């Protein structure tokens, strides 16, 4: 590599679609991407090129990273086919070459000492919390999970998480599984019950805003994984601004892709997003 590239630098390569599995409203896409799992840390993401005519890259959360396995180094992405890019990826046949770059962005910050953690995820974005849960558990922290979705089809299965989490709560807007409700209506109770010192959240901005505010009231730190539309996903273009208050107390726009995607919840000027 080049002089300024390091072992933690993202890499760009032609990966390959290994499998696409339909799970409810989502597709679990497994890509062979040598070098990416080795560099992966929970909270980082993968940028995917969706054909020549579409110049902007699409970012996807990495749900699982396996450096070694029967098919070599693979990453799992959870995709909700909603826009042009996600539909493109979700419909690729096995063996399709795909241009990818990753892992990109700043990962979740992990506590130095074991603490009580609450992980809050809405919809497909909750995917990013599962490798985080494992990592926190390995480091001795207590993991509590709160998952939300409009309905069962949009709920990420919490089965695996039950192995790593002390508690798992589920809320759906239509009550099809778990308690009827939303993240916004359930997060304060979950914070109290888990006695969380740190809250990790992933989901739409409105949900993150709610969680960050609740964490603040509760006196907990929050780390939010923020998804924004991006053009390059690599920090080159300034196309994904996030209004924040910097460590120096000065308001500025930073880039979701390289200065995030994980931000301290109390640093983001949510109302201006």
């Amino acid at each position: 590599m080049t002089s300024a590239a390091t072992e933690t630098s993202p890499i760009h390569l032609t990966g390959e679609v290994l499998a696409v599995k339909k799970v409810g409203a989502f597709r679990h896409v497994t890509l062979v991407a040598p070098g990416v799992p080795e560099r992966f840390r929970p909270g980082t993401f993968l940028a995917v090129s969706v054909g020549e005519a579409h110049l902007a890259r699409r970012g996807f959360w990495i749900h699982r990273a396996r450096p070694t396995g029967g098919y070599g180094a693979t990453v799992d992405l959870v995709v909700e086919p909603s826009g042009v890019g996600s539909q493109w990826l979700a419909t690729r046949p096995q063996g399709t070459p795909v241009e990818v770059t990753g892992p990109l962005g700043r990962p979740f910050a992990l506590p130095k000492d074991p603490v009580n953690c609450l992980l809050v995820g809405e919809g497909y974005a909750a995917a990013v919390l599962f490798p985080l849960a494992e990592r926190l558990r390995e480091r001795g922290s207590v993991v509590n999970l709160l998952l939300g979705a409009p309905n069962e089809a949009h709920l990420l299965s919490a089965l695996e998480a039950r192995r790593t989490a002390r508690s798992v709560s589920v809320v759906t807007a239509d009550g099809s599984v778990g308690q009827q409700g939303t993240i916004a209506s359930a997060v304060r109770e979950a914070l109290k019950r888990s006695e969380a010192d740190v809250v990790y959240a992933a989901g739409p901005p409105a949900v993150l805003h709610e969680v960050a505010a609740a964490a603040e009231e509760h006196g907990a730190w929050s780390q939010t994984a923020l998804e924004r539309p991006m053009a390059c996903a690599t920090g080159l273009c300034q196309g994904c601004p996030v209004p924040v208050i910097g460590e120096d107390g000065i308001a500025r726009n930073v880039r979701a892709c390289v200065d995030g995607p994980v931000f301290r919840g109390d640093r983001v000027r949510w109302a201006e997003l």
Partner: protein
Amino acid sequence: MGRAVIPDQRVFIASGCGGTGRELAAYVDLSLLGGFVTRSITLDPRPGSVGTRIAETPSGLVNSIGLQNPGLETFLALELPWLVKQGARVHVSIAGTTLGEYADLARRLGRAPGIHGLEVNLSVPDAPGLNVFDVREPFHAASVVAACRREFPRDLPVRAKLRPDVSRIVESARTVAEAGADGVVLTNAAPALMPDGRPGGLSGPAIRPLALRCVADVHMALPELTIIGAGGITGGDDARAFFAAGATAIQVGTGLLHDPTLASRLLRELDEIGDPP
């Protein structure tokens, strides 16, 4: 891969498409490039535009970044030294609110160590509302170039980046050349509209034929003028088309956003064919 890539003076990174340089350095050795052009630097920091900044359109992107940059002081303190240390040949793109501001930027950048050239942005595509000195009239563009040329060290190039306005491109190029520009960058993004109705700039392969036409027309009329071609270059063949039209070097911009390894790929592709410089 495998074989060492040699520096190629003909491959530049276009303004606004290489981040601060640090982000791009993961994908290409900056010291192997002909130049790294910074995003446009203004005297004071600019927060950039609010709302959607980049939208996709077939084979192109429309952007309205609003000149977000940390301002001259912070650029000189935090960004330039790192670039110089990497061995990058730094060309600073500048945009000003007034003629005096352009002159001020040129003077202060001229004193900063390690700068290889100045690129005067005379074609900010989303300028309306940004409070940028109006240079649509060639006379004003010439005043800006003359002021920058006067203030910037004589042995370093001052180049003007122009918009792809085919019907006026020769006139614009001649005017800035007569005002002292050592070359022109053809071209910037084309003035366009964002989906929400704000002014923006269209870039990418969608404008390549337009940019090529500008290069060809200017080269025909002003064969002695140095032309750096830019506009939708995504590979060696595109670069060669610009060389054939009269450019002596090229810049890659939007293509890098799609493939961050484009610059290193270009270095290889141009090296393999062994084109004469």
